[in-house]
C-alpha cells in the first residue's frame, strides 16, 4: 500500500476546468453560506441566551416561578422530547405505511393522485392545525380518553386527573396533532424514495418467490433506509420546533408527568417560547432564548444518533 503522503505528492490537485471550478465554488459557497447562517443563529442565540442561563433565580424573577434557568428548562425539555417522541411513534409507522401504499400497493394509475391527496395535509397552516385540534380533535377524543381512564386508569399513562376526569387538551392530543402535521413530510419523502427503488432489485426479490411484502422488505426498505431516517428526522425537527399548534391545543403547566390524558401537562420549548415571548422583557427574554438554544442541542443529539445509525452501513448504500 502506498502511503498517503506519497500519493499526495504524486498527484497534486488535478486540473479543473473553469465550468467545474465555478460550479464547485458555487456549491461550496452555498454550503458555507449555510455554515455562516447557522453560525449567525448560534452566535445570536448564545449572546442573547447566555445572560438567561447565568442569571440567578432572583434575577429572572417571578416569570419562572422563582426557579433558576435549569430548573425552569427541565420540564420543558421533558415535554418537548416526550411530545415529539409520541408524535413520531405514531406518525412514522403510519407515514411509511401510507408511502408504501402509494408507491407499491395502490393501483398504479391512482398512485400519483393519492400522493397528491396526502400532500394536501402539508398544505394546512399550523394555525389551522391548532384550530382543528382545539375545535374538532379534542372534542372528538374526550369520550375516548374517558374510556381509557376508566379502563386503563391503573396504567400511569392513562391515569387522568386526580379527581377522576380527563382532559382532551392533554399532551396526547397535542402529540396527535403533531403526528398529523409531520405525517405528510415523512410520507412525501418516503414515497419518492420508495419509488426510486431500482426495478432490477425489485425483480430480483420477486424472482426468488417473495411476496409483495417480502419484496418490500428485501429490496425496498434496505434501499430506502437512510432516506426513511432522514425523513423521520425532518419530521422530528418539525415536531420539536412546532409552536402555534401546540400552543393552541395543549393545556400546559410546566410539570413533568407521563400521564397522557390529564389536564396538567408538560409544555414544550417551542410552544413555551411562543406563549411567553410576547409579554417577556428583560432577563426573561434571555431565558426564553436560552431555551431555544437547548432545543438546538436536543435536535442535534437526535440527528446525531440518527446519522450514526445510517453511517454504520454506508458501504451498503443503494447508489452502487
Amino acid at each position, binding site marked *: 500500500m502506498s502511503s498517503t503522503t506519497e500519493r499526495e505528492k504524486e498527484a497534486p490537485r488535478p486540473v479543473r476546468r473553469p465550468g467545474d471550478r465555478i460550479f464547485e465554488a458555487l456549491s461550496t459557497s452555498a454550503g458555507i453560506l449555510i455554515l455562516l447562517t447557522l453560525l449567525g*443563529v448560534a452566535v445570536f442565540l448564545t449572546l442573547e441566551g447566555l445572560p438567561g442561563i447565568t442569571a440567578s433565580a432572583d434575577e429572572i424573577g417571578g416569570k419562572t416561578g422563582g426557579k433558576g434557568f435549569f430548573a425552569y428548562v427541565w420540564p420543558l425539555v421533558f415535554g418537548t422530547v416526550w411530545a415529539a417522541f409520541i408524535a413520531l411513534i405514531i406518525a412514522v409507522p403510519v407515514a*411509511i405505511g401510507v408511502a408504501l401504499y402509494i408507491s407499491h400497493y395502490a393501483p*398504479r394509475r391512482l398512485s400519483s393522485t393519492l400522493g397528491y391527496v396526502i400532500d394536501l395535509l402539508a398544505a394546512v*397552516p399550523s394555525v*389551522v392545525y391548532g384550530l382543528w385540534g382545539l375545535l374538532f380533535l379534542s372534542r372528538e377524543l374526550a369520550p375516548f380518553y374517558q374510556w381509557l381512564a376508566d379502563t386503563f386508569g391503573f396504567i400511569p399513562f392513562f391515569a387522568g386527573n386526580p379527581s377522576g376526569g380527563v382532559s382532551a387538551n392533554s399532551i396526547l392530543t397535542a402529540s396527535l396533532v403533531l403526528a398529523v402535521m409531520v405525517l405528510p413530510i415523512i410520507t412525501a419523502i418516503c414515497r419518492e424514495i420508495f419509488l426510486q427503488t431500482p426495478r432490477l432489485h425489485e425483480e430480483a426479490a420477486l424472482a426468488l418467490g417473495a411476496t409483495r411484502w417480502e419484496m418490500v422488505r428485501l429490496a425496498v426498505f434496505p434501499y430506502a433506509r437512510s432516506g426513511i431516517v432522514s425523513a423521520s428526522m425532518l419530521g422530528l425537527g418539525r415536531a420539536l420546533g412546532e409552536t402555534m399548534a401546540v400552543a393552541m391545543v395543549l393545556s400546559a403547566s410546566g410539570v413533568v408527568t407521563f400521564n397522557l390524558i390529564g389536564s396538567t401537562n408538560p409544555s414544550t420549548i417551542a410552544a413555551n417560547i411562543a406563549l411567553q415571548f410576547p409579554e417577556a422583557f428583560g432577563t426573561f427574554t434571555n431565558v426564553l432564548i436560552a431555551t431555544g438554544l437547548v*432545543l438546538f442541542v436536543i435536535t442535534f443529539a437526535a440527528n446525531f444518533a440518527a446519522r450514526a445509525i445510517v453511517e454504520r452501513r454506508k458501504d451498503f448504500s443503494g447508489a452502487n
Partner: protein
Amino acid sequence: MTTTLQKTPEPFDLKSELQEHQLPLWVPKAIVAGAAVVGVLLAVSGAVSIAQAVLIGWALTWALPIASRVVEGGRKASDRTVTLLVSSAFGLALIPLGSILWLVISRGGPQLSAEFFTYSMRNVVGEGGGIYHALVGTLLITAAATIISVPIGLFTAIYLVEYGDGNRLSRSITFLVDVMTGIPSIVAGLFAYALFVIFFGEGIRLGIGGAVALAVLMVPIVVRACEEMLKLVPNELREAAFALGVPKWRTVVKVVLPTAISGIVTGVTLAIARVIGETAPLLIIAGLTDSVNFNLFSERMTTLPVFTYFSVKFPGVPPEASIDRGWGAALVLIIIVMLLNLVARAVSYFFSPKGER
C-alpha cells in the same frame, strides 16, 4: 463439484403446492365487502356511532389475514396482514385530512367572493373587507424565501453528494443542517430581526426580512430532501456521462438532477408548504398591516397565516365577521399550496424519466 444436491425428499404434487394452500379468489373480496356491509348497516341502523361502525367494519376485515394464516400459512398471511395494515394506514391518514378540509371548507368556503379577493382590510371594521393585502404578502414573501433558499439548499445538497465526499466541511455542513431542522420558527424570526437591525436600526419591518426568516426554516428541508434524492441516483449513470467526456458539473446538471427531479420538486414543495403557514417569525420581522404593499424592501407586509391568526384570536366585537374571514384566509392558503403542488407535479412529470413508471 463434489457437493451433492439434497432435494426436498417427499415427492410433491404441483397441484397442492401451487393451489390448495390458497384462499379462493373470491374470499378476500367477500370479506372486505361483508365488512363494509356490516359497517354501513350498523351505521344506518343507528345502533352505534359512525366512528364505532367504521371501527367494527375495520376489525372484521381482519378475518382475512386470520383465515389466511389458517389456510395459506405464515408467509401469505404476513403479506395479507401488511397489505391490510398499509391500506389502513392510508385510510387512517384520510381521517384528519377529511375532517380538516371539512372544517376549513365549511367555515371558509362561504367567505370566498370577489370582494374577499380584491379588498384589503384598510379601514374595514366588522363585516366586509378582504385578504388582498395578505394574499400579495404571502405570495411575495414565500416567493422570495423560495428564491433565496432553493438555490442555496440545492447547491448545498449537490456539494454534499457530489463534491463533499465526506470531508470535514461536508461533515460539518451535514451536522449543521441537522441542527437547523430544529430551529423553532420564532427563533428564526428573532434572528432575522436581529440581522436586519444591524443594517436598518431598531423597529425595522420588511417583507424581505420575513423571507429571510422563512428561508432559514426552508433551507434544511430542501437540503435534506435533495440530498436523499441525489444519493439515490445510480453511479452507473454518472459514470456513463463521465466516460463521454462530460465535465462533472454538466453531469450533475444534465444527468443527476433530471433523474432526481421528481424527488427534488417534492422536497421543495414540502419546504414551501412547511413555511407558507408560518405566523410567529413573520409577525416579528414582517409586521402586520391592513394595507396592500407590493414592495418587499420597504414597510410591513401581512401574510395569510398572520391574518388568519389575528382574525381568529383578536376578532373585535362582534367576533363572527372577523373569525369567518380568518377561515376564509386559511382556505385560500390551502388552495394556494394545492395549486403549487399541482404545478410542481406538472414540472416533475415533465422532466422525469420517460416510460418506466
